[in-house]
Every structure is written in C-alpha cells, then in structure tokens.
C-alpha cells in the first residue's frame, strides 16, 4: 500500500503546502483586525461586514461582468468546438492547433494587444476614420465594460474550447445519424444528444471563465478604466492600503459568491437539458 502512494507524495506536498495551507492561513487572516497599521490576531467579522457595506455595488458589478464573460466565452467556445468536431472536416486539426497555440500566447501580451486595438490612437479608430465611417478618433472603445468583456473573452476562449472539444470528441456519430434518420430536427439533435453529452465540458469552461474573470484585476486596469472590478480593490489593499485582513475578506466574499453563481448555472443547465 505504502509503495503505491509514495510517488504521489511530492505532488500532494506541493498541493497541500503551497496551495491549501496558504489559502487556510489567508482565510484565518480575514478574521483579524488592523490597529495602527499592524495586523492583530482577532476573531471579528468586521471585515466581511465592511466588504458588503463599502464594496457591495462593486461586487454586484463584478459578478455581472464575470457572468457576461462566462456566457460569451462558453457560447463561442461551444460553437467553435462544435465546428472543429463536426463541420470543419479535414480542417478540424488545424483549427484545434490554432486553439492550442493561442492558449499560451501571453496574458499581458493579449491585454496589450486589445489596448492597442481599442485605444484612441488605436488600430480600430485609425481604420474607422480612414474609411470615413467616423470623423475623429473615438474614446468610446477603450476604458469601458465592453472592452473588459472583449479582452477577457479573447484571453479565456482557448481555455474554454479544449474541455468542450474533449467532451464532443467522445460523441458517437452513429447516435446522431440514428436520431436524424428517425426524423429529429437539427435543434432536437443538439438539445437531446450533443449538449447532454458535453455537459461536463460546458461546466468546466463556464466555471473557468467565470472564476478567472471575477478575480482579474489587470484587464480592468488596462482596458477598463472606469469599469472598476473587485480584483482592482483587492489588489490595492495589498499594494497601497496594506490592509491584508480586509483584502482577505474581500477575496473570500468574491470567491464564495462566485461559487454560488457557478452552482446556479449548473442547476440551470441541468434543468434545461433534462426537462
């Protein structure tokens, strides 16, 4: 028994020692208090109350934006994975290859790319003024919620395509043919065969896209401008405010509310495919 388990020990040690333990310690800190700029061990929920009172509206905005990104990413990813699996024919592997190479195309690089596309001196503005569609460069594209949604959807799309494609790959063509031969409309095939069989992949894609965008702070800062999200305020507690207990309480609040939404999405998806 021991011989079978020891090869997993180093991985378990990294997981427990560098992921679980820091998170538990971080959770404990959220109940501490700060006096005269020094952290003191305590057992107070004041930080959580302050999170809801001071950042309640930011929390709601963040969850709404993350939900928009989650839906947009999952929908696009499903469509694209569906094309790779069923519609692209011999081009399928090439499309998958594009997905895989853009997966690690660079987080900051991708954000910077959209900043230079959407900015006032950006490519989009130059193109639009060039063809005479608008008279002068518009500042409406960058520093908006839309810019955050576009940039994060762009960043997360390849991560969402892979789990859905993985699930679509194991669908048997014969089942779909049989359904069609028996007179099922394309929409019915989609609803009754394709989507139920890739439920797991859709859940992974949505969860990933939702959680990562709910906790992002770099994108809102670079292309979001006024669109202030929770991550931005959490990060400032560490870089400027040095109120770690508050930052910790904010982190766990966004984490728990995000998980509630992910679970709600799961229940909705279940209900939609099993009437």
């Amino acid at each position, binding site marked *: 028994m021991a011989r079978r388990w020891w*090869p997993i020990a180093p*991985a378990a040690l990294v997981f427990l020692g560098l992921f679980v333990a820091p998170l538990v310690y*971080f959770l404990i800190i959220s109940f501490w208090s700060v006096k005269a700029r020094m952290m003191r061990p305590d057992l107070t929920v004041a930080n959580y109350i302050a999170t809801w009172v001071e950042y309640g509206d930011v929390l709601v905005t963040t969850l709404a934006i993350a939900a928009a990104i989650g839906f947009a990413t999952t929908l696009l990813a499903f*469509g*694209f994975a569906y094309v790779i699996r069923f519609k692209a024919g011999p081009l399928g592997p090439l499309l998958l290859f594009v997905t*895989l190479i853009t997966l690690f195309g660079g987080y*900051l690089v991708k954000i910077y790319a959209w900043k230079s*596309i959407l900015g006032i001196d950006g*490519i989009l503005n130059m193109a639009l003024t*060039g063809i005479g569609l608008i008279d002068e460069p518009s500042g409406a594209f960058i520093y908006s919620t839309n810019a955050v949604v576009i940039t994060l959807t762009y960043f997360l799309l390849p991560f969402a395509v892979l789990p859905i494609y993985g699930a679509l790959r194991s669908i048997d063509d014969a089942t779909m043919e049989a359904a069609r031969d028996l007179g099922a409309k394309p929409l019915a095939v989609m609803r009754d065969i394709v989507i139920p069989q890739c439920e797991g992949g859709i859940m992974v894609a949505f969860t990933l896209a939702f959680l990562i965008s709910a906790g992002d702070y770099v994108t809102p800062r670079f292309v979001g401008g006024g669109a202030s999200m929770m991550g931005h305020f959490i990060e400032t507690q560490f870089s400027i405010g040095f109120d770690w207990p508050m930052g910790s309480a904010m982190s766990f609040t966004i984490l728990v509310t995000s998980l509630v939404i992910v679970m709600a999405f799961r229940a909705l998806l279940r209900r939609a495919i099993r009437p």
Partner: protein
Amino acid sequence: MRARHVTDQLWRGFGLVVVLFMLAPLFLVVLFSFNESALTSLPLTGLTLHWYEKLFAYNSFWPALKNSLIVGFTVAVCSVVIGTSAALALSVMPPRRAGNIINALSLPVMLPALIIGISLICYFVRFLDIRLSLLTVILGHLVIAQPFVLLIVYARMATFDHAVVESARDLGASTFTAFRTVTLPIIQPTIVGAALIALSLSLDDFVITFFTIGGGNTLPTLVWGLVRTSLDPTINAIATLLIALSIGSTIVALQLSRYRG
C-alpha cells in the same frame, strides 16, 4: 438538403470568424513591432528593427530575461519530476479514484491567480517568515504548472501497455531500473512536451510573479512596467519575443506529446 448545406456554410463562416478573432490581435502585435512609426496605428509606415535594438539596449531587459529563464527552467524540471511521478502512480489506480485525486490537484488552475498570489505572499512573509526571492516565485509557479504536467502525462498513460513493465519486473529489474529502461524511453516525448508546457506557463505568468518576487523583474513584470509608463513599439518587440518563446515551445510540445485536445 439545401437548408442543411446553408447551415453548414454558416457554421464554417462562424469558425473562420473565431479563428480570425483568435489570431488577428497577436498578429497585429507582431506586425507593429516591425513598424517604423512610434504609434501603434495604421497605416504602416515602413519596416524597421529599431524597436528590437532599443529593447536590447535597455538596461532592465537582460536581467529580466535571465530571471525568467532561471524560474522557467527550474519550474519545468521540478514540475515534470513531481507531476510524472504522481501521474505514473495514478495510472495504475482505479480510474474513478485517480480522477478524483486529479480533480483535487487541478483546483489551483480554476482559482484566480490574484487569490493564489496574495495568499502566497501572506503565507511566505507572515507565516513562514521567508524573504521573497526567485525561490518564492518558483514555488508559486509550481502550484499552477504541476496540474498541467499531471494531466498531460496521465492522458498519455491511458494508452500505455503496463505489461511491458511487468515483464521487466518479472525478469528481475528493480522498480527504478524498470522505470529508467522501459517506461521512461516510451513516454519521454510526452514528458519533454509537458516540461515545455510548464515552461510556457511560467514564462507567461504575471500575477503570481508580481506578488512573490520581492525585487527585480521577469519579462512579464517588465512588460507591466512598460505598458504603464509608455506605449511605444518596444513593448511590441518584447511581446513578440514572449509570443515566439511560448508559441514556439507549445508547438514543439505538441509535436512531441502528440496531444490533440
């Protein structure tokens, strides 16, 4: 029949739009790194390598590259040793139990990097009381790189014939000799592939590095500083290098591991 033909065309059109959406922004970043004008906007004014010269003459660039490579290669080697060891052990367990363990070990990938980064800085600085350095960056990267190695090697082991290892053991080879002479040569391409994926993840990580590095820079934190202070095509040049490094290693990794989604 005609209706179905039209919907097929629509699906293909949609696929093409998504491919353009995925590739065009990265292509533009690379394109403008060679453009003469200091503004990243159309129309192009002429080809130049000026921005690369400026980047290579920049004092902070070389130390950042060195740090990135030190961290990246250490993370690649460590995560491959740890991840492969675990994947091999998991591959001989009942699939259901192995699946549960893998799901648990993959949790760090699902969490926002911000939360991993700040929980690590609290843990290192306050609980363990160790100085932030490249070592703490490496430890932070291990957390997110390890699940990828584990998943890639575990997927490879699904089609691995365990009988060859058993025959080696029956013929008197020790566990380690059997691993070194039988298992390792067979799965070596996958392992190198997984190492390169871990390398790209580490080279690309900004958020965890930002919190755990203390002083100094890696390439992504350098880019962060540049984007905040200026917007000239030097950033495109460094971004192009990052794209080349990570996409290059991903392509080699894909070739080696034959991973297809």
